[in-house]
């Protein structure tokens, strides 16, 4: 089962290493990871997507919470949160394929951000399902490169992390 954890950390040097190191040495698999400053300069938000049953995820949260630089850690459940990821996709684009690619891109609201004689590069903003579906549809044209930022996640409504 995939779980999305949101971790609020003090913006100290090396803090990402502490969090990631903990995941790897305790054998927790990270599917994706994104980091950035929060609304308060002193803190950063790390969003981690991990695989594991409920017990494993509870254990991860407790271990993460013990890190001195960690302020808060909580799970964001799909029904109460919004997940987004930026995905950059470069595909082969022969003249014949171009219109089709443009069509799919517009259905997915992907932006064309670069065009060359042989390629098109698009940016897509979405949750995991949307991104995966888009990639599937692009495969037949010949995907040259995919770059994904990892999920960012935020709670719906007035709910907010303790900072």
């Amino acid at each position: 089962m995939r779980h999305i954890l949101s971790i609020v950390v003090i913006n100290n040097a090396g803090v990402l290493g502490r969090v990631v190191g903990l995941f790897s040495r305790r054998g927790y698999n990270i599917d994706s990871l994104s980091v950035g400053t929060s609304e308060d300069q002193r803190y950063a938000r790390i969003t981690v997507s991990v695989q594991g049953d409920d017990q494993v995820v509870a254990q991860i949260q407790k271990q993460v919470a013990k890190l001195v630089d960690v302020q808060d850690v909580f799970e964001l459940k799909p029904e109460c949160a919004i997940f987004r990821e930026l995905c950059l996709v470069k595909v082969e684009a022969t003249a014949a394929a171009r219109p089709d690619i443009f069509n799919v891109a517009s259905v997915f609201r992907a932006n064309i951000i670069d065009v060359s004689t042989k390629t098109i590069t698009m940016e897509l903003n979405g949750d995991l399902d949307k991104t995966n579906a888009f990639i599937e549809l692009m495969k037949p044209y010949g995907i040259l490169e995919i770059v994904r930022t990892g999920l960012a996640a935020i709670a719906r409504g007035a709910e907010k992390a303790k900072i």
Partner: protein
Amino acid sequence: MNKLQLNGAEILIECLLEQGVDTIFGFPGGRVIPIYDALYKYKDKINHYLTSHEQGASHAADGYARSTGKVGVCLATSGPGATNLVTGIATAYMDSSPMVAITGNVPVPMLGKDSFQEVDITGITMPITKHNFIVKDVNELAETVRQAFHIARSDRPGPVLIDIPSDIQTASCNFSAKTPLAAVRESTRITPQKLNEAAELIHAAKRPLIYTGGGVIASEASAELCEFAAILGAPVCVSAMGIGGFPSSNEMHVGMIGMHGTAVANTLATECDFLIAIGARFSDRVVNNANGFASGAKVLHIDIDAAEIDKNICTAYSIVGDVKKVLSLLNPLLKKQDCTEWKNRVSELKAKYPNVQREASGALEGQYVIQRLSALAADKAIFVTDVGQHQMWACLNLQIEEPRKFITSGGLGTMGFGLGAAVGAAVANPGVPVINIAGDGCFRMNSIELATAVEYDLPVIEVVINNHVLGMVRQWQKLFFGKRYSATSLHGKVTDFVKLSEAYGAVAFNVTTPEEVDDAILKALALKKPCVINCEIGQDESVFPMVPLGKGVGQFILKEAE
């Protein structure tokens, strides 16, 4: 507040003094010369003990901490000095021992350039410290040191490392002293509801078993534990780390549980209907196989570290918080329990599996030596052990009545821990004899710290249980690897331990028969000086009971199959 302009090294020492530190163990080098210079200046206020090896300094700081409950401090230079501390830091981490390790490093502008004797010690020790710091601004040094001590001793204690580049040691800034923060022990999650629920479960239990670990000692909860056990009328078993937390002489004491646990404790674990784990972490050396551990019992887990709950064993009930606090709030809620039947069962098992007193004649046995040490010195000494068969014999045979009188490397199982730790315990407890029970393999690893014991004239007695083999590994080869004794014989190493010890300036003698044992022990105790007793035993003595790997704790074996 009077402000002083001091350099980083002096600020470090001022902060140590502020934290009540008067003792540190260390070894100098190029990147800590300013700190040593400050130690020179402050030598009336802080005692520095020079060990033979940084590993010895780290174990000494650990032994100091375990025997007092205070934070132990060690100091080493950059690079190899820092890496030599690693084993000691990991040992302290696994056994939740409060320690602050201080290392020097190359100047800030030289960091990251593979400079001479540069290592990323904060990176290296990240997984084996509660937290660590590298200080890159002298203005942050004092607060960092204060935070390090606070972290080391608060909640579940553990080691913290501070890496101080040498230019930070020489840079100056204003310093004003502060009163240190009192250690905090998490107790916000101890709710009346949790306590009442626990009380109800305890009242419903017919066959309760209490299992305790190092947390009882760390939180100084022995008195509360004794009261708790008396109300329940329940037997108490301990992990290796829990030894001393509950008096061995108490009629409810049933000894160590686990792989080399007593037959009584391990049988009770399989028969109990309610297991109360207190300040213990269900290590695999205790549990062996989670499916065969207390499988008929509900489990209540009381521990300060929330991450220990449901980590190795899933428990239905738990209270997270300082165990002293939990027990002191829980005890008044409990009604005296009458478990006559269960108590009878405990007596029956104790009669069935008595702790056999070894022979005073015939061939000398390791367990006999340890039983005599217990009889002659347990009322006055602090015991330390190394790691191997001798350690398990010590766990099974020493009568330890008080916390902090038994020190062993439980979680990491560090060979060579004992002598350094004994030096630290002896420094911390002037006038108290400290007896390290060592194996010959362990003694060979770190015997160099005898030089330290001699230099500072410490009453450390090193009792080498010399079987001329790496006995514990050999036992596994004997039982589970078809007696293929690969690399476990030490017979080829002909070191004369008595001569070696004498070369270090210690008194030393050989003991080869049981008749000589008492005299040797009494003589060593009377000397009040570093002393080595080399006890020559056979190579085939095994540690029993033993639960083979993967078996349930009830499936212990008591002797070798013929």
